[in-house]
């Protein structure tokens, strides 16, 4: 398997900038309402089922638009508050490992050791043994070589969260910094994050999950560009409402806070987000620092990206159904809205699919949701969509891209899969994102998209035969073409690259089951 070599971390702190224009957000919200109002109440309805489908999708988009506006309202591209207090308590640094290549872990370890901070101790939380990874001894040797502690679990359970919980029992510091095996901290990580804990109400501090390999290929690029919007504008906005999302890495926890909620949550695929929500429920504050203080690896291939997105989608859907933020008593209204907005993001795939199906229905049946000249709709829709795109770009400091948008919208199949898996109670696994690039043909993951294209191509023929080149036909064809254009980068990313491994060598499953299996615990 090809190893990717990366340059040493650039320790010059990069801030994820974000800004918004209140005027443009107000206009955007107004246009969104106007657009919805026209669709829902003004235009004469056509087929009632298609109308219902379209309106359902539009209600969801309205929710997304307004929660986005609510989140980013008034954020400025300001620099963070200067740190005035010197606060250097002892910190335990956790590096959970579950089979990642030793070379990757070593980079992280070297970064952690280089941190400029007076008192900290590093622990490698080695889950390689319980995960059945061959290199678990290699990790122990690595720890020995660098003179850091290594806690190797022998009794599995709870995946990464279980690993951290296990280590919490073995350590004593009041503060715990967590870095995934591939996330190399900058030298100033602790120096920047720890002073926030001078406020005794702060339960955790989160920093961005930066992908240093974002220029590697289409997948890493799109993955980071999506992250940049999230860790830029959205997380800044959430932070203003004391609703920072815990991401499981590049963070510092207060032991009291994590112990108060009984440790990291282990019964959810997105254990970090739920843990953060529980900490908020218990009245703790959170801080999000929009500075890149650690550098990690993006999923480097389509399979890894797909699995990562599926895990996040599955976790969010579980959060929604099992721990609905609206029903959590300890959360403020703002926190409830923020957690709900994050969790419902993964329903956007369903809404998108519903919209994308409308041209297909039209091609094959001639049915339309509205009996209108769609040109009337264009007058509102065009400024609405352009302003939305501009606000999105502006909020992300012009870091968002077409491919990020394409990946985000094309992930509808992942979102739908996650929802179906949850509804049909298929067990979800904590699939660790691969730290090396997996080569292969992943077109099987985009079969729904290719099927859509096939349906459009045939549908166009059916449509022409039925009614010729009518205005409705052209408009629906244009919409279908847009959807196909959005799917194209996604399909391209799934297609095999020039270098490929035999299928047998492609690790399809790197899953640790969530259900605990009692085994004898062993700590080195």
């Amino acid at each position, binding site marked *: 398997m090809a190893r990717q070599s990366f340059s040493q971390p650039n320790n010059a702190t990069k801030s994820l900038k974000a800004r918004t224009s209140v005027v443009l957000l107000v206009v955007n919200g107004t246009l969104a309402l106007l657009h919805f109002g026209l669709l829902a109440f003004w235009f004469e309805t056509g087929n009632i089922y298609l109308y219902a489908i379209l309106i359902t999708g539009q209600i969801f988009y309205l929710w997304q638009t307004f929660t986005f506006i609510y989140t980013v309202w008034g954020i400025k591209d300001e620099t963070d508050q200067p740190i005035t207090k010197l606060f250097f308590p002892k910190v335990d640094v956790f590096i959970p490992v579950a089979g990642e290549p030793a070379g990757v872990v070593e980079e992280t370890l070297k970064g952690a050791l280089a941190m400029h901070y007076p008192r900290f101790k590093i622990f490698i939380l080695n889950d390689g043994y319980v995960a059945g990874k061959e290199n678990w001894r290699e990790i122990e040797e690595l720890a020995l070589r660098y003179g850091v502690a290594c806690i190797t679990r022998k009794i599995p359970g709870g995946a990464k969260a279980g690993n951290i919980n296990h280590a919490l029992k073995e350590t004593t510091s009041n503060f715990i910094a967590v870095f995934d095996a591939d996330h190399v901290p900058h030298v100033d990580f602790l120096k920047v994050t720890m002073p926030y804990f001078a406020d005794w109400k702060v339960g955790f501090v989160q920093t961005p999950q930066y992908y240093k390999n974002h220029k590697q290929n289409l997948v890493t690029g799109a993955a980071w560009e999506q992250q940049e919007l999230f860790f830029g504008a959205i997380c800044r906005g959430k932070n203003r409402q004391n609703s920072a999302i815990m991401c499981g890495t590049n963070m510092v926890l207060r032991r009291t806070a994590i112990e108060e909620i009984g440790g990291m949550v282990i019964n959810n695929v997105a254990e970090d987000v739920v843990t953060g929500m529980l900490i908020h429920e218990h009245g703790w504050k959170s801080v999000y620092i929009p500075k890149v203080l650690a550098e990690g690896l993006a999923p480097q291939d389509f399979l890894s990206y797909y699995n990562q997105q599926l895990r996040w989608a599955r976790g969010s859907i579980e959060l929604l159904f099992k721990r609905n933020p609206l029903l959590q008593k300890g959360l403020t209204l703002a926190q409830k809205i923020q957690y709900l907005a994050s969790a419902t993001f993964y329903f956007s795939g369903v809404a998108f699919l519903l919209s994308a199906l409308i041209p297909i229905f039209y091609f094959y049946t001639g049915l339309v949701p509205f009996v209108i000249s*769609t040109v009337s709709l264009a007058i509102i*829709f*065009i400024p609405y969509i*352009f302003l939305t*795109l501009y606000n999105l*770009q502006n909020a992300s400091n*012009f870091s968002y*891209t*077409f491919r990020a948008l394409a990946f985000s919208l094309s992930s509808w199949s992942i979102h739908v899969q996650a929802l179906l898996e949850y509804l049909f109670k298929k067990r979800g696994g904590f699939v660790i994102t691969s730290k090396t690039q997996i080569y292969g043909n992943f077109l099987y993951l985009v079969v729904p998209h290719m099927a859509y294209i096939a349906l459009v191509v045939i549908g166009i023929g059916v449509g022409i035969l039925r009614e010729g080149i009518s205005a409705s036909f052209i*408009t629906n064809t244009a919409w279908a073409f847009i959807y196909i254009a959005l799917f194209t980068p996604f399909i391209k990313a799934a297609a095999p690259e020039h270098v490929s491994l035999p299928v047998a060598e492609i690790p399809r499953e790197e899953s640790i089951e969530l259900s605990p299996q009692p085994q004898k615990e062993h700590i080195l």
Partner: protein
Amino acid sequence: MNNQQRPSFEQDAMPIGEILLLLILFVAGLSFFLFSQQGLRLDEAQSLWQAYHSPLKILQIVSEDVHVPLYHLILHYWQILMGEGLEQARMLSLIFFALGIPALFLLGRSAYNSSVGLYAAILFAVSPFMNWFGNEIRMYTLLTLLAILSHYFFLKILRNQTGWLVWTGYFFVSLFGIFTHYLYFLLLCSQWAFAFFQRKQISFAAIRNFFIVSLLLGIVFSPWIFYIVMNESSPNAVPHLASPTSIDLLNAFSQFLFGFQTTHFNTIILSLWPMTTLFGFLAIQKNRKISLEATYFLVTLFVPVLLLFLVSITLQPAFLSRYLIFTVPSLYLLISWLFFVYPSKIATFLQITLIALMIGSLLFEVTNARNPEREDYKTVSAYLLQNAAPQDIIILSAPFTIYPILYYYDGPTQIATLPIWDRYQRGPIPPFDESALPDQVRQLGDHHQKAWLLLSYDQGYKEKIKMYFDTRFERLETRQFSPGLTLSVYRLRYDTPDLNL
């Protein structure tokens, strides 16, 4: 915007001068070989008629019309200099159009870079919309040229590259602009609004100078307003148009790009509107901020269009794509900039596709007999000359269509209008009164054998006149010469043998 991403034409040592010259030759050739075949249109006939008079009379006539007099005065002296033929008069518009090509290039180069400027100039040269008005005896290409120059000076002011030359240029261009078309004020409004919102970026001196320029323009324009009021002609200074719809709004943009096409073609173009969403999606590129210049062109494109649309649906219908021709340079520059932002392969594909579509539309516009803007008064006049007898009468409606007919028709048959209008009498065209119609028809038809009823430019009563004639007289013949231009022949009397049909 990062202009280093793609090589500009300077770096490639492209022969820009030669390309611009070729573009000018292209529009000239097109004019000579294709547009020159077209007959005089109503608006052109009106321009010629107005410019035929003395300068003082021109002021009076134009003050009673919906326009301002600069173009007519220029045309007046141009005709003295070059002669009174149709071709000579059209050449004036063509010159303004041709000058607009290098001017737009310079503006694009100044705002972005040579690549954007050149592509915008190409769009301008192959534009069916611009070519149409580049061959029409109206003020629209002058208006466009002034708008381009105004953008040029305004951007220099925005960048604080000011000096007396820039301010003088801006003042005089604005002055000529407001005396070329009333709606030039919309451009000034959008510029001043933009300057207001960008006030932090421009110096206090620039804001002060804007104020002075505005004041001076107001002072210089006020005598004209005073003159109109004194002449009591202000009620005529508004066009008689229907209230626009959302389709008209989008149609304006379609015309800016693809010119005047048939309803079917327009339907296809307008139905493709979702594609604009894709163009928006593709523009989402890393670190590609909307530059100050792009924002400016967005404002100067959409503010005038939307303002006119809003005024037209709320106060007074005045929405015509030609009135907004001064927004076309902004549109073409925005498209050129947008393509420049795209990844190069997509950009090249779209650039070529758009040019091909525009050239195709241009050829279709010129050659298509069903072009809705086509007004074949030339052929209909020839037909009347050949077929109408001295004992007949030619009745025209709307009344102002008498201008192009009189330009071509020099036969013996009496010409009248419905409603009856004596154009030598001062004042507006009398309004249509349905109750007065029988008397007017009787008055016109009493001593004539046949009525040659030519209906065009529906002012809301075309159908009523046609119905009146259809129900009272025997219709002998109906011919359509171009869309909306219909000639019907009615027998008025039976006591004289018909020798003509």
